[in-house]
């Protein structure tokens, strides 16, 4: 399936981009993150991240659909 990834903060720095489209057989965010961490050298354990699909927080076992926008959210530091 094809997914749209958005990257922020240190994940964007590591990926060297703020977004990308990927082809993947990953069916949930957990599997997709494992693939992308391998590819881009992400070092955050999933327990330190939250995941959003199509602009809403969801869980790591959410079933992904073709064309979904997936965002892995590193610990926030606003304020």
């Amino acid at each position, binding site marked *: 399936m094809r997914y749209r990834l*958005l990257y*922020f*903060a*240190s994940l964007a*720095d590591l990926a060297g981009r703020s977004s990308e489209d990927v082809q993947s057989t990953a069916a949930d965010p957990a599997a997709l993150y494992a693939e992308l961490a391998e590819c881009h050298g992400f070092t*955050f354990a999933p*327990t*330190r*991240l*939250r995941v*959003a699909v199509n*602009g*809403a*927080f969801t869980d790591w076992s959410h079933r992904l659909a073709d064309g979904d926008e997936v*965002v892995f*959210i*590193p*610990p*926030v*530091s*606003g*304020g």
Partner: protein
Amino acid sequence: MSGFRLADAAIDVHAGLRALDDPGSGACVTFEGRVRDRNEGRGVLRLDYQAYPALAEAEGAAVVAEALVRFEIRAATAVHRVGALAVGDLAVWVGVSAGHRDAAFAACRWIIDEVKRRVPIWKNEHYVDGESGWLHPDNSPVGARE
């Protein structure tokens, strides 16, 4: 009028205050978060805020909506900057109006704490020594809820 928004230019505090005008409110509490010149002992020259806009606005709006249910307040609004800020710049503004001061103080404090904890905004600090880095506080577990 209540709500949350991201601002890519200087926050208009007076507009925020006008949004809280309400004859039934005997208390108005505001919080200004400003860029400090030091963090963890390092000199800070400036910083950049980056947000995931769609989710930041939705989550910020959820924080304000939850505050309106949780506290005896009449209006609440919060604004967070994105982009490049200098030391002393206003980074985040929270305003709450309520019938009485206890609820206004408590809600204002709760909103800024929740914004800092939940809203997908990140700070990249540029230090006096020329280094810079994204802040990712280890508030583990990240997804924890009260």
